[in-house]
């Protein structure tokens, strides 16, 4: 075994350029497979981390059709009082507005919500205070903005008490939110300007926002799971909307994560499949060159047979050569994939993402290359093994 391995290495080493060209197919195939799958899984884990960083104890409820029984803040409070599986409820509504401050103007995303939103979403203030119940009751013209908005519109982040014009109405900034990468809303709207207003204020400001609550966040009560909260919400809403489960929708972060993972695993399989095809093409290249090698070395095969090599010895020799070629290509491919991922890592270092070799895929690549070497090496090796000693010995001379 070690001897035939040595022999194979030697034979490959005697024609390095050809060996490398032959391996190229396998190298590229392995690189495609390992790099693509590692990139997808790296990106997935980064996004998944972000999603689960939001806390998975959160339900998003959207009412599609209120059946003449719209939900208002009182309804929500009643539910909270009656059901101990529910923790906090925060209604929210979003809109856009033109904002202008002392330094500039621009388009902002507005969120109208209540005091509870802060805890449910786990936000962080860098200064000032968050919305209070009183702001909601008084329809106060106050807002909390993010740091981006503070810098762009007012010019500096320490701007509590400054005035901000939203669609021509004057609002007072009462707090500035810290930039926080663990917030999904922030991740998806990174770099954009956001302002949070009391729910009742936004309804007044907006021309499109309805007075009734259409969507709200719910968290599970202490000692209760999200599933329990979800069951409670489903029951309450079913009762309210005449047992019509199409009238509302409850989604949780878990569901989001599940969707994410099913999408990415599909993507992984698809990319892996494409890369697998290029590996098979590489295998055909190996078979081609092995057939040439067998023909070129017919005389050598004749000599070996004359001095006593049986079919198996010849078969092993050429099969070993094909497998070794494949495995060398595989190792080079994995090494190059690692190098490429390192480069990608330096390039995207600022994006808070990191890509590393995906170990299962590396294993799959190794096994797959081995099988390809065996399968595509078998035909040429068998051709060599079946040569008649006398014909092979007198071939071309």
């Amino acid at each position: 075994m070690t001897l035939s391995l040595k022999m194979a290495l030697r034979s490959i080493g005697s024609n390095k350029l050809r060996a490398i060209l032959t391996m190229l197919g396998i190298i590229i195939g392995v690189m495609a497979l390992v790099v693509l799958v590692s990139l997808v899984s790296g990106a997935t884990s980064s996004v998944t981390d972000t999603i689960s960083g939001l806390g998975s104890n959160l339900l998003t409820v959207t009412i599609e059709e209120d059946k003449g029984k719209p939900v208002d803040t009182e309804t929500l409070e009643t539910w909270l009082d009656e059901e101990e599986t529910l923790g906090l409820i925060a209604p929210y509504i979003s809109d856009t507005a033109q904002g202008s401050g002392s330094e500039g103007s621009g388009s902002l995303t507005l969120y109208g919500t209540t005091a509870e939103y802060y805890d449910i979403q786990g936000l962080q203030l860098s200064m000032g205070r968050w919305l209070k119940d009183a702001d909601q009751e008084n329809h106060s013209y106050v807002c909390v903005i993010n740091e981006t908005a503070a810098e762009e519109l007012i010019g500096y982040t320490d701007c509590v008490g400054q005035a901000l014009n939203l669609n021509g109405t004057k609002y007072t900034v009462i707090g500035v939110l810290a930039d926080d990468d663990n917030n999904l809303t922030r991740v998806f709207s990174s770099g954009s300007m956001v302002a949070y207003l009391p729910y009742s204020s936004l309804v007044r400001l907006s021309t499109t926002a309805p007075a009734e609550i259409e969507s709200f966040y719910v968290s599970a009560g202490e000692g209760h799971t999200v599933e329990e909260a979800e069951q409670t919400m489903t029951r309450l809403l079913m009762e309210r909307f005449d047992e019509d489960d199409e009238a509302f929708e409850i989604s949780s972060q878990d569901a989001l994560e599940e969707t994410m993972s099913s999408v990415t695993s599909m993507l992984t399989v698809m990319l892996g499949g494409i890369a697998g095809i290029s590996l098979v093409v590489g295998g055909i290249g190996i078979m081609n060159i092995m057939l040439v090698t067998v023909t070129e070395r017919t005389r050598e095969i004749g000599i070996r047979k004359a001095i006593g090599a049986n079919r198996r010895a010849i078969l092993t020799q050429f099969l070993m050569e094909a497998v070794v070629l494949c495995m060398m290509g595989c190792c080079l491919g994995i090494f190059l994939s690692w190098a490429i991922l390192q480069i990608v890592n330096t390039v995207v270092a600022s994006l808070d993402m990191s890509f590393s070799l995906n170990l299962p895929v590396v294993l799959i690549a190794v096994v797959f290359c081995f099988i390809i070497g065996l399968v595509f090496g078998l035909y040429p090796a068998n051709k060599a093994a079946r040569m008649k000693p006398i014909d092979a010995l007198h071939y071309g001379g």
Partner: protein
Amino acid sequence: MIDIKDLCKVYIVGDEKVRALDHATLHIYPKEFVSIIGPSGSGKSTLMNIIGCLDVADAGSYHLDGLPIESYSENQLAKIRNEKIGFVFQSFNLIPKLTAEENVELPLIYQGLPRQERAQRVQEALERVGLTKRAKHLPTELSGGQQQRVAIARAIATRPKLILADEPTGALDSKTSQEIIDIFHELHDQGNTIVLITHDPNVAKQAARSIHILDGRISEVKL
């Protein structure tokens, strides 16, 4: 040692049948030094291939060391070639990528001998042909006579019952040829059976007995 009776071998070349061997019968005894002589096309190559178990006859019987060769499979013939026969060819037939000692080692590898014993036998064989100093050289770095000596070393390394030499001096000048023939004499003196196939009467003369072959027939056996 070699017991051949009524061997026939016919090749079809185009529309013509060529009788390469026509009821050839011959005996070679253990420890003999025999030459088989005949002009080209006489069937001596066919005879050599059959004696060397590289080819099988169409009819007739061939016993090598008591074994009925025609009844063996290809793999069994490979084993017989490996263990009982040492080949020396006109064109040396060394593997160009392997060094002298690796070429000599090759049949021992196919025999499945352990590494230490292989090394010892390679050493012995190279000593007997006087090439110990050239053990690490590739065939292309050796002269024709040296290459043929490596080939002889490869043939004797397995300690075969029969050494089969096909025009071993055909590619060499007369001085080197004599050196090679001398090695065969030595091997004969040490008790090996040697069959030397040639078209050159001067080479054939060196053997104790010459067998003539013409048109596929053993025409004369001179003692």
